[in-house]
Structure formats: structure tokens, C-alpha cells
């Protein structure tokens, strides 16, 4: 059940009505409804994977309680390791088994050996990367004594499987979401306004901007070796915007849906293309993941506490693992590695006056950041390393004639809707507003007009819907 499908348009209003019609907003009943609806939502993708979700939830719920009840640190550690290893094993098996086997075969062949281990036909359970991180953050927080274990199974299950964020985040923390699950939610008109405005803008970002950009991007990436350098550069720029509007659009719908149910979910994007450095970019891009990686991986590895060299190592490792988290392909590892490298370089040159100069003239920083991000995304988008290398090679080949365009009408629409999206982001930037709270900050009449205008733009310009990019992860 996609957020931009007719099914969701029927499913959500029913849940919304039932949820708020519960007398006195009784939390227990509301949570039971959220639990059932979240599992139904997940079963709509593939009911077989429901068992995996239930198992993962039960595992962390049970080990969490055991950790809290442990009499000594060793016992606690054992339960902690059981949870972490089991979680990672499931993720590893479903997401990375074939990747590692195929990489092993390829390496053996290159070294002159003939290995023949079996690959399996494994379907990636939707959302596994996201709910595994939910579970992991929960057990790590208990292990680090940041929170206490949750004793109510339904409450914990709602934290893991809350349907707005079940399949592609934002990646929530137990410290942030569990208290909201346990406390009474009050309907407020301002939160309702914020929610519907954010959902509408999210839909526009996805089905109009991202899907329009996808037309040219998909066309070029299908056979990059027949395009000139300018077309490839245009496709790389378009993809950087496509993935932003696709995932930010998804996050807007998720956060807006959460708001309509009385929840404040973590912000996931904060105008990342207005970052003046890669370091700042990662504070604005897929924030729920980047902060997760910072808190549960980078800092756990030692962060910047053990000297410069170890800081660089930790940064690189964090970004490589972050890259691999996205998918079982070397392209993601390279993408993560590139970002790790950029971050290390920035850390190294930060005291330098040139860097300070760049920070002062912010528009240069925007361009610098965007170019590096768009470049790294070439690896992210390409089906394999060879294709990405072809892209990069042909971009640098100097064939800078006019870009090849097959459908001028589609291109015109793409550019216009991209400009609308970018102008809106610029407005948010200039007025220093966040999309999460825009609905309650502007006048009611302005909000109504903005929503109606956005809906009409969707009617006139929506492109054929493709799946959300991050659903594959």
C-alpha cells in the first residue's frame, strides 16, 4: 500500500476517524487500533513478512525486559548481544546474503579459484532496514541505561511498526517515540493544519516533481553510453533533485500522517541543498539516519575522541556502513565511501582560511556541496560500478553539446515543476520556516489556498507514479 495510492486514500481516513472517535482518546484502545492497522498496512505489501516483523518485535521486546531485569552487567551484555546478533543476522541474510556470495565468487574467480556456493532467491522484506534500526536503537539505549525496557507489548509493537514510518522511516528513537505512544494524544486544529499541508506538499514533491524528473533520469541511465556529456550532467543533476523530492516527499507524508494521529515524528530533511559543506549536508539530509549513525555507530566507535587518524577512520567506516545499509551493491559502498572521504577532507581543511572563505560566500558553498553530492549520487543511482564509471568517464570526455532531449513537452514540465519546488524551498529558507510547522504558522486562508493550488498543480502535472526510491532499502 503506497502512500500515493488510492488504497491509502481509503485506508487512512478510516483509521483517522476510528482513532479519534475512540471515547476520551483512550490511549490503550488507540494503540490497539494503531497496532492492528500497522500490521494490516504491512501485510498489504506481503503478509508472509509479517512473521519476520512479529519475530523481530518479540525478540527486542523480550531481550529488552531481560536486560532490564539482569542482575549484573555480564548477563545484560549476553541478552544485548543475543538481540544485536539476531537482528543483524536477519538483516544480513535477507539483504546481503546474495551480495556477499556473489562478491566472494567474483573475487575467487579473479584470484583463479573456482568457488561455487549457492545463491538463493531471496525477496527483501519491505522496511526491514528501517525497523531493524528501530529495534537496535531500543536495545542499545537500554544497554546504555538511557531508557528502561517497555513492559507493554502493544506499546512497544506500535513503536516498531507505526505504519506512517514502517517502510521507509523516519528512523525513530525509543526515547522520542515511546513516550508519545504511552501518553494521551490530544487532537489540535493547528496540528491538523500542519499535517494536511505537509501531506499535500509531500505528495506534490513525489508525484509531480520527483516522478517528472524520473522520466529523463531513467531514460539516460538505461543506456548512458549513447549520451553526450551534457545529457549525463543534466541527468546527474536531475537525479540529485529526484531523490531529494522523492524521499523528502515520502517523509512529509509520513510526518504529516503522524501529525494527524497526534504524533511528532523526527524531521528527516531540512533543505539539504542549502548546505554549504558536506558536513552540513549530512545534518540536513536523511537526518534520522545520519543522527542514528552518529549516535549508535560513529560515537560507539570512538567518534573524534582518540586523535585525528582514528576520527578519519571512524568517519570513513560510518559512511561505508551507512552506504551499505542502503543496499546490497558495491555502488552504495562507493557512494558511502565518497561521502566519508569528503567529510574527512573537510575535517582536515576546516582550520584552513580557504574553507572559511567558502563558508562566508555561501552561494559558492551551495555549489560546491551540490556538485559533490550530485557526483556521488551517480554511483548511488547506477545499477553497477561499471555503469557509474561509464557515466563519469563520458561526463569528463568533454562532449559538451546541447543535451539530448526526446520529449520537449516533458522536459518543459520537468523544469517548471522543479522551479516551483525549488522556489518553495527557497521561501522556506528565506523566511526561516520549517515545513513541519508551516500549517500553523501561516494564516488559515493562506493554508487553504496553498493546499488547493498544490492539488490543482498535481491534477495538471502529476507524472506516472513510480515507487518511492527508499522503499527498496
Amino acid at each position, binding site marked *: 500500500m503506497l502512500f500515493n495510492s*488510492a488504497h491509502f486514500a481509503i485506508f487512512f481516513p478510516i483509521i483517522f476517524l476510528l482513532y479519534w*472517535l475512540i471515547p476520551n482518546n483512550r490511549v490503550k484502545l488507540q494503540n490497539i487500533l494503531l497496532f492492528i492497522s500497522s500490521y494490516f498496512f504491512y501485510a498489504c505489501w506481503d503478509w508472509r513478512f509479517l512473521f519476520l516483523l512479529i519475530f523481530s518485535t518479540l525478540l527486542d521486546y523480550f531481550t529488552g525486559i531481560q536486560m532490564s531485569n539482569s542482575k549484573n552487567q555480564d548477563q545484560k551484555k549476553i541478552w544485548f548481544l543475543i538481540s544485536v546478533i539476531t537482528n543483524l543476522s536477519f538483516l544480513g541474510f535477507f539483504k546481503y546474503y546474495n551480495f556477499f556470495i556473489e562478491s566472494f565468487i567474483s573475487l575467487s574467480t579473479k584470484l583463479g579459484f573456482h568457488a561455487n556456493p549457492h545463491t538463493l532467491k531471496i525477496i527483501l522484506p519491505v522496511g526491514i532496514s528501517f525497523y531493524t534500526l528501530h529495534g537496535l536503537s531500543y536495545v542499545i539505549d537500554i544497554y546504555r541505561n538511557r531508557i528502561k525496557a517497555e513492559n507493554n507489548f502493544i506499546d512497544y509493537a506500535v513503536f516498531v511498526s507505526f505504519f506512517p514510518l514502517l517502510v521507509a522511516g523516519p528512523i525513530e528513537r525509543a526515547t522520542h517515540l515511546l513516550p508519545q505512544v504511552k501518553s494521551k494524544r490530544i*487532537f489540535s486544529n493547528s496540528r*491538523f493544519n500542519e499535517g494536511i499541508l505537509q501531506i499535500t506538499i509531500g505528495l506534490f514533491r513525489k508525484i509531480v516533481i520527483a516522478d517528472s524528473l524520473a522520466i529523463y533520469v531513467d531514460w539516460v541511465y538505461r543506456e548512458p553510453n*549513447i549520451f553526450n556529456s551534457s545529457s549525463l550532467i543534466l541527468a546527474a543533476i536531475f537525479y540529485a533533485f529526484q531523490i531529494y523530492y522523492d524521499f523528502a516527499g515520502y517523509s512529509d507524508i509520513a510526518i504529516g500522517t503522524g501529525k494527524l494521529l497526534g504524533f511528532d515524528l523526527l524531521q528527516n530533511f531540512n533543505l539539504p541543498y542549502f548546505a554549504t559543506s558536506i558536513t552540513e549536508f549530512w545534518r540536513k539530509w536523511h537526518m534520522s539516519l545520519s543522527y542514528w549513525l552518529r549516535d549508535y555507530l560513529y560515537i560507539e566507535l570512538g567518534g573524534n575522541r582518540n586523535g585525528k587518524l582514528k576520527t578519519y577512520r571512524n568517519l570513513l567506516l560510518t559512511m561505508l556502513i551507512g552506504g551499505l545499509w542502503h543496499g546490497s551493491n558495491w555502488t552504495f559502498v562507493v557512494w558511502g565511501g565518497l561521502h566519508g572521504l569528503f567529510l574527512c577532507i573537510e575535517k582536515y581543511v576546516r582550520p584552513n582560511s580557504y574553507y572559511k572563505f567558502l563558508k562566508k560566500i555561501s552561494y559558492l558553498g551551495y555549489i560546491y556541496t551540490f556538485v559533490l553530492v550530485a557526483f556521488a549520487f551517480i554511483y548511488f543511482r547506477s545499477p553497477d560500478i561499471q555503469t557509474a564509471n561509464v557515466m563519469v568517464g563520458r561526463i569528463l570526455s568533454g562532449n559538451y553539446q546541447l543535451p539530448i532531449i526526446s520529449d520537449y*513537452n516533458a522536459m518543459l514540465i520537468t523544469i517548471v515543476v522543479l522551479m516551483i519546488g525549488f522556489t518553495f524551498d527557497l521561501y522556506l529558507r528565506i523566511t526561516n520556516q520549517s515545513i513541519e510547522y508551516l500549517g500553523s504558522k501561516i494564516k488559515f486562508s493562506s493554508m487553504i489556498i496553498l493546499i*488547493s493550488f498544490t492539488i490543482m498543480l498535481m*491534477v*495538471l502535472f502529476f507524472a506516472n507514479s513510480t515507487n518511492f526510491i527508499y522503499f527498496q532499502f
Partner: protein
Amino acid sequence: MNVKNIKHVLGTLILICSICYITDKLFFFTLNKISDNVYTGLAIGKLNHYLKIKESKKLLVFGSSRANLHVDPYILDTSSFNMGLNARNIAFVTTVIKLIENKKPQTLLIQIDDSTLFNEDYDGKDLDALLVKYHRNPLIKKEIDKLNKANPFLNFFWSLSYNNRIFGIILNYIKPKYDYTKYRGFDAMEPTEHEKEVFQNFVKNKKPKGCPDSVHLNKLSYNCFLELIEYAKNNNKKLIFFTAPFYDDECKIDNEELFSLTKKLNLEYFDFTDTFRYDTSLDNWRDEAHLSKIGAIKFTHKLKEELLKNSKNFPL
């Protein structure tokens, strides 16, 4: 949720729906006014042009880009029009043919793609090109609804019909791309240097794809054939089907199957898939499925020659 909240939610939603409904109708009727005067471009112009001349021409050509780019109708008959459109197949062709209301004798030359006819997934999606007339032509509405190809929101948002066409329509309204009174619907183009290079690379690196053991006619396509036969019988139309040239077509099973089907249905069918098998000049081609202008002119002459020789009463 208290009464105030319920009032707020309902009030907000009703307000948004009302504004959208009114704005939508304003857009729809304005765009109707504009688009009715557009006769150029593919967004709506060619369809409008066709609707204007369909009753008066003796010969009409239908099909996909492989009709549009391959057949110069003027060579076949001076009273003719090529209604071929990119990515349009048998469902679209059947509907636009059924829009012809007269019972005068006319020749309908229909290009068919075996790749679509034998594609089990083909569901008539190409009918979406007619959505632009969904609320204005009962026959088009009926055909689109029959195949369930209308967006469920189309009943509320009428201007969804114009989805992604606005710029094409407005630009052609402000500045028509060509003089439509001289346009015959034939859009063959010389390949660009880039296209030539791509095609040469394709030929150089072409590897056999392999052929299926059997092919099955798509049910929708079969129904379209039956509807066309029925329509032609009741309206004095002569149907001629053909397949257009394809570069180095490997598989013949679909051609054979199509041949036996048309024989069974007693239809006139000409297979030109291999017309350029012995004329190996790459100048004839833009890509493996489309001819260049040179190739298209050659092909149309060949088509005419073949029709004059083997088609009963051609031209009518």
C-alpha cells in the same frame, strides 16, 4: 476530538474540496476553449485535425510511430491522412476508427505491431491519449471506461484530462508548429548524427536475443480485431492490415501466427517486416524499429505497389 475540532476538520476539507472543484472547472472549460482551436502538435492537435477531416478522406492510415513515421499517405492517395501516433496500438486505433460516423466507402490502412498483439500484458493503456476528450465524447468515454483506463479522480477533477498536456496545447495555440491545412500526418525525419552513430553501434554490437517457443494472442487485441471487422462491415469500410519493417527481425513465430490469424478472420494482411532484408543500407533506418525519411519513402512506394497488385479494389 470535540465538536469544535470536528467542525474545523469538516470545514477545512469542504473548503478545500469546493475551491478545487470550482478551480478545476474553470481550468477545464478554459482549456477546452483553447484546445478546440489547436490543430498542431501531439498533445491534442493531431487528434483535433483527425476529428475534422476523418469523414472526408478516402484513405486513412492508423497505427503507432511505425505508421506515423513510415507511411506517406499522399503517395498512396491524394485524399488521405496518416493518424499514426507514437506508442498507440490496437485499442487506440479501434476507438479512433469507431469515431468515423459516415457510411461512405473508405480505406483504413492499419499498421499492427506483433510485439503488442502477442504481449499478454497489453491492456489498452494507449487509450490514455484519448483522455483529453473523456468528458466531451461519449464514445471515447465508453471505450475508456470499458477498459477501466480512467483515473478514479477524473470524475471529480475534470481537468485531469489535460494532465501533462497544458504546455503542449498552449504553445501550439500561441504559435502553431506547422500549417495544419498542408499536414498529412506523416512525420518522417532524417536521423541526426547522434542517432546515426547510436544505430551504427547497435548494428555492430547486435547479439541474438532468442525467440519464444510459442506466442499467444492477447485477448484484448483479438476483441479489437472482431470489433473492427464488425464496424467495417456495417459502415462500408475496407480494412487492410500490415506490419511495418523491422531491422533484422529474428523471430518469425509471431509473424506466422499473425498470418494464420488474419487468414482465419478473412482479413487482408501484408507482412513488410523483412522488406529491407536485402537493402542493407543503414541510411534507411533511424533505429531498429523506425525508418529514416529515405527508408519511409521507399517503403511507402513498396506498400503502394504491393497493395495495387494484391489488394482487392485498392484504392476504393
